[in-house]
């Protein structure tokens, strides 16, 4: 069984992001593996370990520097990597076509994982476009998955915490959600082992991607300026706790 995990090389969420020319960010910051993709790799590795003769292949489109992100996936347990090298930005239509081409040149997928979104573009489209191109079923924000030889039974979390359970025939595309697992990070011995793993490089132009009739491009990026107005919460511990609870419920609406 071949399990592909599509990974993205994204800026560290802790980085100081600066916008240049109103349309791109200053890339002189730390880039790393998209956090949702960590859940995808961890799950792919777990599933691989329950099926004989199966492998996990990490796929990425990006600049050469994105090999670091593939290396992170290999250290986390993926068996080999595919990097489609491109210095350009690609919209989700093109990205899905590229990923499909790289996968098709490598083998036959039984499962394709993505993260449920990337933390930079937050487009949430790649998994659906991949599914459509391959004609595979798709589920996203997946928090549980059981796989046998022919199907995957998944739990998909909807807004408000509701969970739907679906059965997908294989091959299928799965967008990993945060609740899927606790990512298993590499130890030093894992990192040493992963150094011997291979990353195959494709050049974007060599994949002969058919241009799409539709496309999407960035018109303008604007930094989000959040006005912060700190308020001191006073009183004894129980009153402070009660006030925080009220704020979280009524103002922040997170609980």
């Amino acid at each position, binding site marked *: 069984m071949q399990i592909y995990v599509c990974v993205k090389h994204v800026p560290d969420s802790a980085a100081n992001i600066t916008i240049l020319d109103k349309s791109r960010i200053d890339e002189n910051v730390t880039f790393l593996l998209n956090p949702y993709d960590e859940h995808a790799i961890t799950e792919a590795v777990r599933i691989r370990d329950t099926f004989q003769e199966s492998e996990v292949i990490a796929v990425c489109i990006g600049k050469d520097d994105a090999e670091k992100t593939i290396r992170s996936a290999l250290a986390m347990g993926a068996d080999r990597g595919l990097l489609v090298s491109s210095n350009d930005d690609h919209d989700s239509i093109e990205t899905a076509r590229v990923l499909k081409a790289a996968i098709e040149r490598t083998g036959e997928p039984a499962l394709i994982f993505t993260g449920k979104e990337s933390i930079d573009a937050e487009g949430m489209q790649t998994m659906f476009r991949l599914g459509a191109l391959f004609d595979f079923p798709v589920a996203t924000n997946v928090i549980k998955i059981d796989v046998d030889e022919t199907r995957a039974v998944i739990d998909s979390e909807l807004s408000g915490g509701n969970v739907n359970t679906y059965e997908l025939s294989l091959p299928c595309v799965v967008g990993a959600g945060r609740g899927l697992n606790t990512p298993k990070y590499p130890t*030093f011995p894992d990192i040493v082992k992963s150094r011997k793993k291979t990353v195959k490089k494709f050049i974007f132009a060599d994949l002969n991607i058919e241009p799409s009739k539709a496309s999407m491009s960035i018109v303008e990026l604007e930094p989000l300026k959040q006005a912060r107005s700190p308020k001191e919460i006073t009183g004894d511990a129980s009153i402070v706790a009660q006030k925080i609870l009220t704020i979280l419920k009524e103002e922040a609406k997170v609980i």
Partner: protein
Amino acid sequence: MSEKYDAIIIGAGVIGCPIAYELSKMGYKTLNVDKLPDAGEGSTAGSCAIVRAHYSTADGVAMAYEGFKYWLNWENYLENVEDEKGLAKYMNTGSILIKSQGHDWKKVQKNYDEVGVAYEEWDNDKIKKEVPVADLHEFWPVRRPEDPKFFDEPAKEVEGAIFCPEGGYVNDPALSAHNIMRAAEAKGAKFIFNAEVIDIRDENDKVTGITLKDGTQIDAPIVVNVGGPHSFMINKMAKGVWEGCNIKTKALRHEVMYCPSPDGYNYLADGYHMSDGDIGCYVRPEVGNTFLIGSEDPECDPQEWVDPDGFYAGKGGKGKDNVLTDEQWKAQCYRLGKRIPSLEVPNQPRGVVDLYDCSDDWIPVYDKSDLPGYYMAIGTSGNQYKNAPVVGHMMAELIDACEKGLDHDKEPLQYKFKYTDRSTDVGFFSRKREINYNSSFSVNG
């Protein structure tokens, strides 16, 4: 501001506060000014707050060991003052110094014997018993992961360790400075915050006071520079002071990492502080059962000297601002991952980036200056947190003696420790010294 002060202390970190406390106890009317909103919020807050005695000189060991007595009796030192934020806690984990080529541990042991530091010698079996997650292979020399030799298989083992049971760390360094501020206030000391010094004024070749950014002038016949990473900028504001220092200070960017403890190992409850020169790291437990991983500044690591204002504003650019870098995250975590092979290293860096106020030889400058009335406690180079209460007392005695006529440059003050039966030559910390090549030139001091 109409009030008159005997001494203005620039900085309210973990060294500025005890200077105020000790001067106040001697009857000086003091004012600390700090550009941040509260005590200990600058580079003190970023300190690893490790309390250990291993230094490369006997005087260094003696001063650190003297410091233990303050941390072990914290409430007593503060004279039981109340702090609405609570008291910082001394976490007396004990301190392991791995015997390796990365530390001159034989010199440390000799210094321990000379000063009378309590210690035990541990063989590797004992280390394995106390730190069951450790792999005791020798990994020397320290390298970076970019170097293919970083991944070479080790052959030999380290030679055991020296364990100092009184060592440990302080759980909240910013709070410890705040505690000392409250103790100082109880003795009459005053503090003002959000106040940035832009000028040191003088008249007739004697310091007369400071000017703040908002134009406020505050007068005092004594000004003490405890500006941490901004110390060199403050020295440049005072007439002839910068030029009169043979030893200069500058701001060194430094990254410290948080990496989760391996499954099944409760490092927070069962762990020790450990200095491991073999891998160029020191570690201590941190809340959330994580390893706090500091770097012992191995030669292969780059040093980033930065403008402190740009750094704190996050405007230095990658590797010069206050955001962790992937490269250093991997270097420090992978080094520790060799010693602790079950340590899982997340992809996203977590930790603290702050600045050392670093001197030319990594030994601090505790001294007067060429401008009468102007003193400095600077260049603490990431290794003086533990000494702060001792330095507070020593600086107060130095200032008092100089104000009473001591020519410290000619006849350096001999400071007698309160608890350890020894004196130290304060001239050792002189601004006029030549670079001390006995120094480790690292955070080890």
